[in-house]
């Protein structure tokens, strides 16, 4: 029963950690706007955590530049299990307009398994909420699979 409780809670209280991997800030602003009174993601239990150790969901924005790649990977590895990786915007999924640049190492999925992609440039807050809700669901499943 306790396990069930934990599993249920995991889906209801996903905390985010946001990594900017060279983003133009468009997605970052949209992510913040998700937490504003207009969209208020807190009513679904989302919260922006300050440290990767607290986070359940890692939101990566930006095309993962060569400079940021080791930092992104290190930070992601520091997130405790179960964790979920969400790429936000087109950049981390493909590189978008920066693809082929000498400084871009992306896409992110080359290095870590990505759970949810939220497309858009930048995605609308509603889309972000959709993506995060999907991530929360995946998180719950992952928790259910854990011992």
């Amino acid at each position, binding site marked *: 029963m306790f396990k069930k409780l934990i599993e249920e809670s995991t889906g209801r209280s996903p905390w985010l950690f946001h990594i900017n991997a060279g983003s133009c800030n468009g997605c970052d602003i949209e992510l913040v706007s998700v937490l504003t*009174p*207009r*969209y*208020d993601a807190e*009513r*679904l239990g989302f919260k922006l955590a300050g440290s990767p150790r607290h986070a359940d969901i890692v939101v990566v924005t930006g095309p993962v530049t060569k400079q940021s790649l080791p930092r992104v990977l290190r930070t992601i590895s520091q997130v405790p299990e179960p964790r979920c990786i969400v790429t936000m915007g*087109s950049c981390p*999924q*493909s*590189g*978008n*307009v920066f*693809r*082929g640049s000498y400084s871009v190492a992306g896409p992110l*999925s080359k290095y870590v398994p990505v*759970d*949810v*992609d*939220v*497309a*858009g*440039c930048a*995605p*609308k*807050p*509603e*889309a972000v*909420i*959709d*993506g995060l*809700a*999907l991530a929360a669901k*995946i998180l719950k499943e992952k928790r259910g699979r854990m011992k």
Partner: protein
Amino acid sequence: MDFPFIKEAISQLFSKSSCAMYPAVPSEAAPGYRGRIVYHPELCIACGMCERVCSGNAISRSVEHLEDGRDKITLTFNLGSCTFCATCADFCTKHAIEFTGDYHMVATKEEDLLVRGSFIKAAPKKKAPAAAKPENCSAQVQTEASGVKPREDGKPVNDQSRCVYCTLCAKKCPAEALTVDRTAKTWTLDEDKCVSCGTCAQVCPKNCIIMG
């Protein structure tokens, strides 16, 4: 040290929240919002313009040669690479690309973010061998015959019967010598400005500009 907004805070305690209750209450994107791409393969002529103008390299075209000699042309729009600038839709003369207000572009697999469409196009007319059908041949000749002759001064000339008025030549013309009106379907060359560089002929997707 003073605390502003106390009154507001207390009054808001008893007023309705200003939240958009999104997942419960669906919300429409604002008019003009460019969301998920819808591709109409039946309108497409596979001119490739969209592919060229796409800054995010989101559009790819694949050609599958069918057994009956025709080609199955598939255009793939990767939403995960798209910047939603709508240049492709702008350039599409056939209006085969459409940006909708649908913003639910969330996927767990990369596959889900691909918009695909394919159509079957007759195989391109190859230079007929000797035993080719005469009417076909004549048609080919006709088109070429109806085409304009190259000018002698080296400046470009446009075969307006084939031109789609995509304006790419005008955009690329370094001397700004070309004016293309899409609605009036005119193609005019300012001969004074033209430098005979041949850029327009190079970029023309329909290869209907001929340099002298």
